[in-house]
C-alpha cells in the first residue's frame, strides 16, 4: 500500500492542495470566459433568470461550505445571514438620498457587512462547540430570527416582506441595471470575485487551521490555536459571503420575504452543498448548479421533484458521502493511469440501463400519484411525452417491465463494472 503510494509522491499533494506555491490560474480564466459567453449561448430571458439564480446559489453554497466542508460546522440556519444581508440592501435601495450616491455594484458589500455583523453576534456564543451543539444552536437562532420577521415589521416587512427598486442607484458607467442581462453581469462579476476570495481564504493560515480544527480540534489547541476562535473567524467570513449572496438576491428580485430566512431555505442550501460534495472547493459549485436546475427545470415537469430530490439526497448521504465532486474525483487515479476510457462501455451498460430502470420507477411513482390524487374523472396523464389513460392496465405493465428490465440489466452487469473499475485503477504490470 505505502510503496505503491510513494511511487509518485507529488500527486496526492495537489489533491489535498498542500505544497503548491502558486494558485492555479487556468480554471479561473476559463470560468471568467464561460461567464462572459453564457448569455450569448442561452439567450432566452428565462435562461438568464435561471443563471442569475444559479450564480447566487453558488456563492451561498460556497459560503456555506466554508462552515460545513472546511470548518466541520453543520448549520441549520444559515439562510438568516443571507436573508438579513438582503433585507439590509432593500432598505438601502429605499433610502433615496443615500442610494443615489452609491453605484449598485457596490451594494453587495453592505449586504456582506450586514451578514458579517449578525454572524459576529451569533458566532460569539455559537462557535464554542462544533458538532451537534453548534447545529442545534444554529437551528434555534435561525428559527428565532425567521419568527421575528413577522414581529419586527419595521425591518422585515411582516408577511409580505419588503421591496425596492435597484434602478434608483447611482448609474455605474452609464448602466442603470434596467435590463436583466446587466444584472447578470453584475452577479457574474460578484460570483467570480467571491469565489476567488473564498478560494484564497482557504489557502491562508486561518483557512488551513480551519481544516486542522475540523479534523482534530484538541491537537490544534496544543499548537497554539484556540479552536473556538478559528471557528469564530470562519463563521464570520462565511456570514460575509452569505450576506453578499443575499444582497445579490435583493438586486435580482428586488423583494425579500420571510421565505429568504426560514429553515426551509437553510435546509435547501445544506442539500445543495452536500449533493455537490463538501470535500472539494468546486463541490458546492456543482451542487448549486444541479440543484438550481432541478428546482427550476424539473419542477416544471413534475410536482414530485422534491420527493425525488429527497431520495437522491438520502442515497447520497448513505452511499456517496463525497457527493458529486467526490464521485468525479474518484476517477482521477484511473485518469492518471490513462485508463479512464476503459470504463466507458461498462458504464454505458450498467449506469445506462440503471438510469432507464430509474426512469421506469419514476414513471410508476408518477402514475401512482396520478391515480391517487388527480381530480375524479381525470384519467389521462402525460409522461415522457406520451399521453395515456392511467386507469388502464397497459401503461402499468410497460412501466413495470421497463423498471425491472433496466434495473435487472444494471444488476447483472454490475460485477463486470466493478471488475473494469479495479482494472482501470491498477497500474499495468502491477500484481493484482
Amino acid at each position, binding site marked *: 500500500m505505502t510503496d505503491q503510494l510513494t511511487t509518485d509522491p507529488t500527486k496526492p499533494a495537489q489533491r489535498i492542495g498542500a505544497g503548491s506555491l502558486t494558485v492555479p490560474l487556468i480554471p479561473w480564466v476559463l470560468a471568467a470566459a464561460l461567464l462572459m459567453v453564457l448569455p450569448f449561448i442561452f439567450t432566452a430571458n428565462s435562461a438568464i433568470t435561471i443563471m442569475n439564480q444559479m450564480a447566487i446559489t453558488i456563492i451561498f453554497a460556497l459560503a456555506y461550505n466554508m462552515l460545513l466542508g472546511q470548518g466541520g460546522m453543520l448549520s441549520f440556519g444559515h439562510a438568516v445571514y443571507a436573508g438579513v444581508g438582503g433585507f439590509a440592501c432593500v432598505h438601502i435601495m429605499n433610502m433615496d438620498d443615500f442610494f443615489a450616491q452609491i453605484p449598485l455594484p457596490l451594494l453587495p458589500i453592505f449586504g456582506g457587512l450586514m451578514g458579517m455583523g449578525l454572524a459576529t453576534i451569533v458566532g460569539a456564543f455559537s462557535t464554542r462547540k462544533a*458538532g451537534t451543539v453548534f447545529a*442545534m*444552536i444554529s437551528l*434555534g437562532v435561525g*428559527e428565532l430570527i425567521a419568527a421575528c420577521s413577522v*414581529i419586527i415589521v*419595521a425591518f422585515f416587512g411582516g408577511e409580505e416582506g419588503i421591496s425596492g427598486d435597484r434602478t434608483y442607484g447611482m448609474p455605474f458607467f452609464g448602466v442603470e441595471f434596467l435590463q436583466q442581462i446587466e444584472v447578470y453581469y453584475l452577479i457574474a462579476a460578484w460570483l467570480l470575485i467571491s469565489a476567488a476570495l473564498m478560494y484564497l481564504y482557504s489557502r491562508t493560515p486561518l483557512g488551513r487551521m480551519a481544516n486542522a480544527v475540523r479534523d482534530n480540534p484538541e491537537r490544534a489547541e496544543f499548537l497554539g490555536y484556540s479552536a473556538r476562535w478559528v471557528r469564530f473567524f470562519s463563521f464570520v467570513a462565511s456570514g460575509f459571503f452569505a450576506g453578499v449572496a443575499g444582497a445579490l438576491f435583493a438586486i435580482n428580485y428586488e423583494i425579500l420575504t420571510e421565505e429568504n430566512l426560514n429553515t426551509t431555505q437553510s435546509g435547501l442550501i445544506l442539500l445543495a452543498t452536500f449533493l455537490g460534495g463538501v470535500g472539494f472547493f468546486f463541490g458546492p459549485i456543482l451542487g448549486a448548479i444541479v440543484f438550481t436546475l432541478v428546482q427550476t427545470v424539473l419542477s416544471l415537469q413534475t410536482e414530485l421533484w422534491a420527493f425525488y430530490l429527497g*431520495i437522491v439526497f438520502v442515497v447520497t448521504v448513505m452511499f456517496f*458521502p463525497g457527493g458529486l465532486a467526490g464521485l468525479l474525483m474518484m476517477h482521477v487515479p484511473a485518469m492518471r493511469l490513462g485508463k479512464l476510457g476503459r470504463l466507458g462501455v461498462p458504464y454505458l451498460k450498467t449506469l445506462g440501463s440503471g438510469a432507464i430502470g430509474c426512469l421506469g420507477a419514476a414513471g410508476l411513482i408518477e402514475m401512482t400519484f396520478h391515480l391517487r390524487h388527480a381530480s375524479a374523472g381525470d384519467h389521462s396523464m402525460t409522461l415522457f411525452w406520451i399521453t395515456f389513460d392511467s386507469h388502464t392496465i397497459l401503461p402499468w405493465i410497460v412501466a413495470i417491465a421497463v423498471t425491472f428490465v433496466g434495473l435487472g440489466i444494471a444488476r447483472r452487469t454490475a460485477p463486470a463494472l466493478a471488475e473494469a473499475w479495479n482494472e482501470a485503477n491498477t497500474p499495468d504490470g502491477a500484481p493484482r
Partner: protein
Amino acid sequence: MDLILVNLIDGLVTGLLLFMLSAGLTLIFSMMGVLNFAHASFYMLGAYFAFQISLYLGFWMGLLIAPLVVGVLGAGVERYGLRRVHQYGHVPELIFTFGLALLIEELVQFIWGKNQMPYATPEILQFTAFSIAGNSIPAYKIFMIFISIAIFIGLLYVLTRTRVGMIIQAALTYPKTVEALGHNVPLIFMGVFGVGTALAGVAGVIAGPVLGTFPGMAFVLGSIVFVTIVIGGLGSLWGALVASLLIGWITTFSKAYNLRMEDLLTWLGFTKPEPIWDSAWRDLWSITSPQIADILPYILMVLILIFRPYGLFGKRDA
C-alpha cells in the same frame, strides 16, 4: 384563579406531549450520540398511520398498532440507514436524519396529499370531563394527560427497575465495556431507536386529532422538540421533562394573558414616542405576549446557551 387552573391543565397537555417526543429523542441521543432530526417525522407518521387504521378498525386499534408500526420502521431506519452512516461520523449522521425528515414529509404528501386528514377524537371521549368557572375541559385532554403520565412511569420503571434498563443505562456511559461484557450493543441501539420512535408515534396518535394531521405537523413541532432538549440539557431525561413542562406552560400562559410590551416599558419608565407609527421602535412598543408566544422557547434557548451552555440539567455535551 380559575383561569390559571385551566391554563395549567392546557400547558400540562402541551408539555407532556412535548415530553413524549423529547424523551425518545433524549434516549436516542444519550445512547448513540445522534440527534435524530427526523424524530418529529415519526410523530407525524404515527398520526397518519393511526388515521389510516382508524378508518377500518377504529381509534383504539390505531392507538395500539400505529406506534408499533412506527417503532418497527424506526428500528429499520437505524439498522439499514443510520448504522451505515455511523462510520462517517456524527455530522453526516445528523445530515442523514435531516434528509430523512425531508423525505418522510414528501412521502406523506405523496401518499395522503397536502390536505389535513379528518382524523378525529373517538366519540367515546367527546364529552366534557368537568368545567372550571365556565371553561369546559374536554375528556380527551384528561385522556392525553393519563396516557403521557402512564408512558412516563412505564419508561421510568423499565429504565430503573429492569435488567434491560440497567444494560441501557450502562451502555449510555460505557458502551465499550457493555459490549465487552457480551451484550449486543448494536441490537440495544436498534431497540432504543425503535422504542424512541414508537414513543414519538404514540404522541402522534394522540395529538393528531387535536393538533391536526397534515404534512407540516412534523415541521411545526420538530424544532420545538430540539429546543426542549437543548434547554433541558442534551442527554438528560429529567431535563427533558422539566423543559417540556416549562415550554408547555410558558407558551400557554403567554397566549392566555395579553401582556403588552407597552405596559412593561411604561412601567420601566420609558415614554412612548409620538406618533408611534412613525417611530423606529414601533414594533417593540406594539409587541404583545400572544404574538411572541411561539418564539419564547427560542429566546429561552439562546439565553440558556449563553449563560448555561450545558442546559438546565446537562452534564456533558456532544
